């Protein structure tokens, strides 16, 4: 490696260092790096929640709506228009 190359590399290193310091100065430090509360208990609570139970009459309603859509397909565009 020649003397000029070593000099260029050292100059580049200084420029990077300078740029890094400028960026650090421009961005304010995070005031609160730690979370205010522990999120894990909430996550556990969420995991332990029972899955959504759909009552039988909602299945019946869904069946009725699907059956009507099959027997009267002309209704589908009108339904999409109102959704």
């Amino acid at each position: 490696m020649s003397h000029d190359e070593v000099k260029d590399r050292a100059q580049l290193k200084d420029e990077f260092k300078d740029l890094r310091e400028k960026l650090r100065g421009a961005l304010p430090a995070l005031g609160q790096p730690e979370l205010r509360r522990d999120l894990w208990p909430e996550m556990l609570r969420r995991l332990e929640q029972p899955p959504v139970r759909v009552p039988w009459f909602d299945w019946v309603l869904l069946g009725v709506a699907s059956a009507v859509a099959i027997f009267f397909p002309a209704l589908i565009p009108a339904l999409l228009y109102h959704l």
Partner: protein
Amino acid sequence: MNKHPLLRAYLAGIAVPTVFLLVIMTVYTMVRYVYNLPVPIERVIVFPMAFVPNLWGLWNVLHAAFLAPRRVPLGIFGCVLPLLLAPLGYGVARLLDFPIPIHELNLAPIGVLVGMIVYYLAWKYLVSSLNVELGIA
């Protein structure tokens, strides 16, 4: 997360029809420009694009502001919305000279009932879960 509950209710309300809008726009584009259906759907597309999502949002705001404290079920309140939307949609279509096939009009009572069922399920399960996520319910 206890700030602006009505704004959050509005956002939760518009989310579901906004997602459905993607489906509607895809179907619209396919039918109109791929299959060249000679029906000027673009005249009335403003209704599902603007009216419906905003009404869903406002409906959810109304529920959050006045009816949730009185424990009115969201599904029941949501299924009333087609009774408002159906005449509004019909009015917009008539105002913009959109040709409505006569068989569609004959099926309107069944359509409103099916719409109420779909809305009941959408509000009970989709909007309600969004309300829970946003800390409104």
